[in-house]
């Protein structure tokens, strides 16, 4: 018999209790997995909006609470092109509206010449050449059931699909590249853009160029990756905050559940713990046994929670309005986070009962009825 086998035998003595405790923690893990996968998916999707056609930076209005609220004159965005450290700057208007069943269809308004210069990877058709044509993401095309030559209505304006593209991020592939002037007219934002996609000149460092742009105009912010996104979008921070809050909640509720189970288990086995001490077990070994039992329950909960989390997330994305904009990302980081939550629950939940068990005097424990 190994020490691990002894731990499992102890848990199997109260199968129902062990199972119910594990399910309780698994629900917490499920929440961590589901929210983590959604948050990571959202971050990846948001990150995808920061780049287009090989750009290095997205320059936008500093302090906007949401990227789509960023606003600057088209001329100001276009002027970035004149900088020596910039290879090209393409003004872009990001507009979110309901298209088909997707309530968050993102239209990327760009000048036709810029689209031709740095197009997204095409999978069908060609880049738009006229004001009434769009380049539709393959995910959007699938959701809307249209292909090249078909039509799509964005902001009550009908466009013909000139081509399809695939970038690999949810919000871009679910949206469309629309001629800038047409989108400004349709969205009633004439002469205004969200910002500009910027490609730095060869040999230049994107971070340094971004800092130079910000130094030249304090009203602007240059975003290189999704971690800088908070400068123009509080949504990502809100999701991260919610994720952390749910994780802490899962730890709190889970730890109380585990503690309840382990305290009960230790109390019931007081006499047995006395026997173990009487035959020579050190307090430390008793602690290892109790903590081992707690970790085993939480690892079972982790595995069950992984499955439940994936199921719950996939179930939510079956709703068309959500599935169109949300692609959960089950990254290693999400799994590690859930595992850390499970282990913290195990350790916090076992701490008190384990210390209590280790402090029992053998005779005091043996007298326990």
């Amino acid at each position, binding site marked *: *018999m190994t020490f691990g086998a002894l731990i499992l035998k*102890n848990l199997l*003595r109260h199968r129902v209790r062990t199972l119910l405790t594990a399910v309780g923690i698994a629900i917490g893990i499920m929440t961590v997995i589901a929210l983590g996968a959604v948050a990571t998916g959202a971050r990846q999707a948001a990150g995808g909006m920061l780049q287009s056609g090989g750009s290095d930076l997205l320059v936008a209005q500093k302090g906007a609470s949401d990227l789509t609220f960023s606003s600057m004159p088209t001329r100001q965005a276009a002027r970035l092109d004149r900088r020596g450290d910039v290879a090209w700057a393409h003004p872009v208007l990001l507009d979110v509206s309901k298209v088909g069943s997707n309530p968050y269809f993102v239209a990327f308004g760009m000048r036709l010449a810029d689209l031709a210069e740095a197009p997204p990877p095409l999978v069908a058709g060609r880049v738009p050449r006229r004001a009434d044509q769009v380049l539709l993401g393959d995910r959007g095309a699938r959701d809307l059931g249209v292909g090249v030559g078909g039509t799509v209505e964005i902001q009550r304006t009908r466009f013909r699909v000139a081509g399809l593209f695939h970038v690999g991020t949810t919000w871009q592939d679910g949206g469309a590249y629309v001629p800038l002037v047409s989108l400004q007219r349709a969205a009633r934002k004439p002469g205004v853009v969200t910002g500009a996609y910027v490609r730095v000149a060869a040999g230049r460092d994107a971070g340094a160029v971004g800092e130079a742009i910000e130094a030249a105009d304090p009203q602007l912010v240059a975003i290189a990756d999704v971690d800088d996104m908070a400068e123009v979008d509080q949504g990502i921070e809100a999701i991260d905050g919610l994720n952390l809050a749910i994780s802490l909640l899962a730890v709190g509720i889970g730890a109380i559940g585990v503690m309840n189970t382990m305290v009960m288990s230790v109390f019931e086995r007081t006499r047995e713990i006395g026997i173990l*001490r009487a035959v*020579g077990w*050190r307090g430390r*070994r008793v602690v290892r046994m109790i903590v081992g039992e707690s970790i085993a329950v939480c690892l079972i909960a982790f595995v069950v929670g992984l499955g439940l989390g994936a199921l719950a997330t996939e179930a939510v994305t079956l709703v068309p309005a959500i599935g169109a904009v949300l692609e959960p990302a089950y990254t290693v980081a999400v799994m590690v986070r859930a595992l850390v939550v499970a282990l913290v629950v195990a350790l916090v939940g076992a701490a008190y009962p384990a210390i209590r068990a280790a402090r029992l005097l053998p005779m005091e424990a043996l007298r326990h009825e």
Partner: protein
Amino acid sequence: MSEIAVEVRGLVKSYEGGRIRALRGADLKVARGEFVALMGPSGCGKSTLLHVIAALDRPDAGHVHVMGVDTDAVRDLSAYRARTVGLVFQLHNLLPALTASENVQVPMFETGTGRRERRRRADDLLALVGLADRTHNRPGELSGGERQRVAIARALANDPPVLLADEPTGSLDSKAGGRVMDLIERLRTERGLTVLLVTHDPGVAARADRTVHMLDGRVLAPAAVPNVPLALPVMPS
């Protein structure tokens, strides 16, 4: 004089804030390899004395030396309990979820014995106590006498030189009790064990080299090794 295995001097132990005085200056010496029976009326402090010697309880005053270990001087007595003394209770005190073999292996976790060695030694010990065919049975599947024999095998798991038994036949019928005593006598002879055994049964005590009587928390017979005459005669069986 024979070498002393167990020496107890002026042992005092009280409970409930001094209201119950279980030991009031108990003295005892047990020679190495000796088999001593401890007798006395209920509440005279026999079991308390045994438990203090087994380091299950700390005395309020007095000294306990077992095989050269001064239990006062050792902060963590786990190693002492694991290696120096083997303990058998009146109720077997086996772990119900474990098989006989696993119960015998439990004390070996603390001595760094490998998994295979633990299993081999447990099976050998169970064969020694006549339970070679019951290694996979849980306590609930064994008779009272068999459980007590498993408990004896567990007490010997780490090959301790001293066996402490607290009324090991107290919950058994005479036949099963007789077998357990046969086993203890045989093991004592074969393994050179020092045995200190608490009993109410004069018949059990008669099997010992000598009987020590206790009354009101004190040992009545003078602390003595076998060549010292006993203050009280051995109770007839």
